[in-house]
């Protein structure tokens, strides 16, 4: 039996990390979740055990103390695999734990293979034109981070979960104090949108045209890193490996080539419509509908048609 520890830092119902376990373990597993209450299921769930961190004792972001706590929990239980979500906090916590346990860490795994007993972790490499298969060396535990939404478990089996609060732990005085939290003015999240109108290098300076089509389709606008890097839009709306993983029903890719890193951000998208001057661009092989031609011309014509008929 393999013992797995999963750090929870997203919605309690997010099972991406459990989905990852399915791909790399072909025997029975015992699943332990660790996290703050708001991120963990409150009743019976896929986990055998849930360990709740006391937010009065350790504040999220106090990664030094969180790391000590997780290390201690591991040393008591000797897990085979420890998984972190690539959330903003997970991204700074996982590397600390990896050093504390003297193990390797692979970031943002997008696929997993079990190859003759060896777990191969796959992630984009070398500017993302290629995918790398990575193996962990040493005695373990195996550690990796996975972006929320990348994997989904096929079978979900409910267990009678043992939920425990972690007591008896004395954190060191925190060197980080939270002073204030402010909501940003715009809180729309491209991950919540059913339809995304996404622009890339082919629309750059005409990016504002996308808004028109988005309004007509009741959709949100997103972008490739090309557009984000050029400073035209915020990283908040970037799709891909270093942006967000999205699963809309419809994704209209306007002037996006479909690099590996971009495609990594598209999971369980039902329909892709690709508009590109080059119908051999990689994104077109993923699309149900390929429109060969200028993206801005396409937006204008389609918008006109929708407006005329509505």
């Amino acid at each position: 039996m393999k013992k797995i520890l999963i750090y929870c830092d997203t919605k309690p119902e997010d099972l991406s990390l459990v989905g990852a376990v399915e791909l790399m373990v072909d025997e029975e597993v015992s699943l332990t979740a660790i996290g703050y209450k708001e991120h963990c299921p409150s009743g019976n769930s896929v986990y055998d055990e849930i360990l709740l961190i006391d937010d009065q004792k350790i504040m999220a972001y106090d990664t030094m103390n969180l790391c000590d706590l997780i290390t201690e929990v591991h040393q008591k239980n000797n897990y085979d695999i420890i998984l972190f979500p690539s959330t903003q906090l997970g991204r700074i916590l996982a590397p600390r734990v990896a050093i504390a346990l003297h193990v390797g860490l692979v970031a943002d795994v997008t696929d997993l293979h079990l190859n003759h007993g060896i777990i191969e972790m796959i992630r984009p490499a070398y500017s993302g034109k290629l995918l790398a298969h990575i193996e962990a060396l040493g005695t373990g535990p195996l550690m990796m981070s996975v972006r929320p939404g990348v994997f989904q478990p096929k079978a979900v089996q409910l267990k009678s979960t043992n939920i425990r609060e972690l007591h008896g732990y004395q954190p060191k005085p925190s060197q980080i104090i939270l002073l204030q939290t402010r909501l940003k003015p715009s809180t729309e999240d491209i991950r919540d949108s059913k339809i995304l109108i996404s622009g890339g290098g082919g629309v750059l300076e005409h990016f504002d045209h996308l808004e028109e089509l988005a309004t007509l389709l009741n959709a949100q606008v997103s972008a490739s890193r090309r557009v984000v890097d050029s400073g035209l839009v915020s990283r908040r709306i970037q799709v891909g490996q270093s942006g967000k993983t999205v699963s809309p029903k419809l994704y209209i890719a306007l002037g996006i080539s479909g690099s590996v890193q971009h495609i990594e951000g598209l999971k369980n998208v039902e329909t892709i419509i690709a508009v590109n001057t080059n119908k051999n661009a990689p994104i077109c092989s993923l699309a149900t509908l390929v429109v060969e031609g200028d993206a801005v011309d396409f937006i204008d014509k389609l918008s006109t048609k929708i407006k005329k008929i509505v």
Partner: protein
Amino acid sequence: MKIVCLIKFIPDVEDFKYDHERNVLIREKMNQILNPEDAVAVAFALNVKKYYPSTTIELVSMGPQSIIPKLEELLRLDLDQATLITDLAFVGSDTYATSRIIAHYLNKHKVDLILTGTHTLDGDTSHVPAQIAQWLGLPHLSNVNSIHMNSIDLGRLELSVDHDQEIMSFAVSTPAVLSLQKEAPYKLPYVRFEDLNKDVSERLKMLSLKDFDLKREDVGFEGSKTKVIKTFAQTLKKQTKIEVTTDEAGIQTVYDYLKDKGFLK
């Protein structure tokens, strides 16, 4: 106040071209650039020095000797020292080995503030800063988008972190590791005209394995905890697809499709 900026030079991603017909990377003329977020960190350090002239700034980079001219260019700004950690033995270091080597160097010096980027454009793991913080036992925050200049002398820094939908303000005791994000409003100045060709070689220090109390097997491929087994180009699952153009018939097809699938009411 002593500030160390950890900086990395990366291949200019815009230079990467992929030949889809032959399935190969075209690597010719690949230019090395300073990771943009690391430039933001250096720019912030320079701001601090303007406010508090007693500040010293050291750049630390682990990489090949080919980046020396780039380091010298930076040294022509108001920076005190650059340290290049470079040895063929270090080639192949994963983030575990890299952070260990850099932390070994930093451990020997009294530093108040270690500034980094949140992530690099090429590797994009964002492991190294948090790992160094752990090796050194220091607090760490990333996605820092501003640091309050007035708080700097107090042994406690006030700063804001861009946390997705929120902005969070923290107070952190120093020494600390802070990773800046690209959106932070600090920009590198230009080198003064009279300094363009200034000889700065005296302020550039190079270190190799023998300068560290680390063994050969602690660094490079041997000292790494992960190993790349193979790389390959992604093959995309082909969809059965409809192909049209942007002429009237094509737009009609798209329109009908959207209507048919219920995307248009």
